[in-house]
């Protein structure tokens, strides 16, 4: 076992010791098992959180790329639209955006599907952050490389497919993972639309078991179960694609 593994084991043990300490100091016992009758509701919540997060990730990856292209476009209007949109999103709490998208923007365009609008809100919210990820990653490709691609006559598709993406994926992954965990955590706010994701499901169960604190502990565990394997996966992809 090398030093690094040992350090990680120690770090995890430290956190577990802290958790054990906090648990033992509690006067009342825990009754997580009181949630077991609601297993199906909560499982659906987990499934929906994952679906919502993956769809939002893919949506914001695509829209973020479009906005990245806008931001480097020679058309000034497109640059301006990107800037204005980014500023507005930066200053908007996700909760506000979800409510406005579902209750005002959706109906204005004739859509009363609140869940779909909730998805859209999350996608819009993440778009500027994804745009930034692309910006920093693509700026790592030197001007000389673009000149070389010009010289040999690469098409735009060939540039991205063979030269740019394979180099930037390594730089792209860590901030992308950051954004993905923002999405997963942000998805909890769709409970205001009564969308059955983890937060909503556990809250419903809580209202019947009255196990208030336990519900939050359960929620915490469920989010960690999703995010930790994901970040490990990201690290693996990074290593696999490293130069």
């Amino acid at each position: 076992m090398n030093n690094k593994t040992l350090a990680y084991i120690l770090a995890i043990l430290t956190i577990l010791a802290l958790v054990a300490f906090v648990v033992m100091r509690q006067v009342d016992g825990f009754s997580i098992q009181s949630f077991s009758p609601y297993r199906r509701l909560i499982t659906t919540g987990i499934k929906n959180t994952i679906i919502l997060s993956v769809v939002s990730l893919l949506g914001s990856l695509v829209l973020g790329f479009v906005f990245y292209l806008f931001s480097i476009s020679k058309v000034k209007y497109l640059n301006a639209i990107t800037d204005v949109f980014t500023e507005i999103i930066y200053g908007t709490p996700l909760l506000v955006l979800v409510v406005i998208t579902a209750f005002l923007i959706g109906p204005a365009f004739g859509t009363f599907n609140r869940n779909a609008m909730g998805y859209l809100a999350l996608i819009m919210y993440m778009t500027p952050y994804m745009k930034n990820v692309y910006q920093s990653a693509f700026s790592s490709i030197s001007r000389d490389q673009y000149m070389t691609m010009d010289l040999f006559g690469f098409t735009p598709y060939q540039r991205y497919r063979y030269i740019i993406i394979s180099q930037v994926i390594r730089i792209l992954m860590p901030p992308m993972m950051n954004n993905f965990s923002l999405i997963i955590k942000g998805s909890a706010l769709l409970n205001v639309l009564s969308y059955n994701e983890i937060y909503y499901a556990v809250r419903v169960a809580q209202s019947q078991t009255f196990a208030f604190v336990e519900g939050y502990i359960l929620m915490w565990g469920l989010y960690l179960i999703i995010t930790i394997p994901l970040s490990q996966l990201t690290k693996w992809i990074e290593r696999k694609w490293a130069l």
Partner: protein
Amino acid sequence: MKIELVGVKHTYDVEVLKDLNLILDGYHSVAIIGVSGSGKSTLIRLMSGLEKPTNGLIRVNSFHVDSEDYRKKIGFVFQNHNLFPHLTLKKNISLILEKTRGIEKAEAESIALKYLAMLHLEDQVNKLPKNVSGGQAQRASIARALSVNPDIIFLDEPTSSLDPILTHEVLTAVEELKGLGKDFIFVTHVMSFVRDFADYVIFMDQGEIVEMGDPSILDHPKSDALKAFISKVR
């Protein structure tokens, strides 16, 4: 080859080329020399079509240099090798042949190997650019320029980032290419290479062509600028 410059001006923030006019015909290896900032690198980029002049017209072998047909007939070697860092030396060449020239993969690879061997890199073909020396990377870049079978090869200070030993290694490799029947246009500070390899020399100073002629102008400079330049680089 035939080179025509008509009223060529170029401006970045300041005017870097001031109204160049030139017709050259029948030379095969043209050197452009001058101090840093004299406009020589700009001129070679314009002649290769990598950049467009602010004003004026450039034709090489009767092609407008911004035409697609012209671009297919040239190779360019940059100051820094500009190899794609994530591809092996072989792949740096074969990918271009495969994707931009529509050559079958197997053939593209055999062409890549042929030119890498010509530049004495047969043992390095599967290495990434970061794992070979600067001189080897620059030679791979020359192999890449040759691989598209160009009529003219441009070299823009190909040894400026190399130490004297690697410089010698790269320039010797270029000299060996003389028999290929290609034309060369190059910028360099290495005067011994100019004397050995060039059949025509253009000396630039402050955005203008001050002297030009066969390499003997280096031994009998007329202008003060060339005299000063020769005395410093010799």
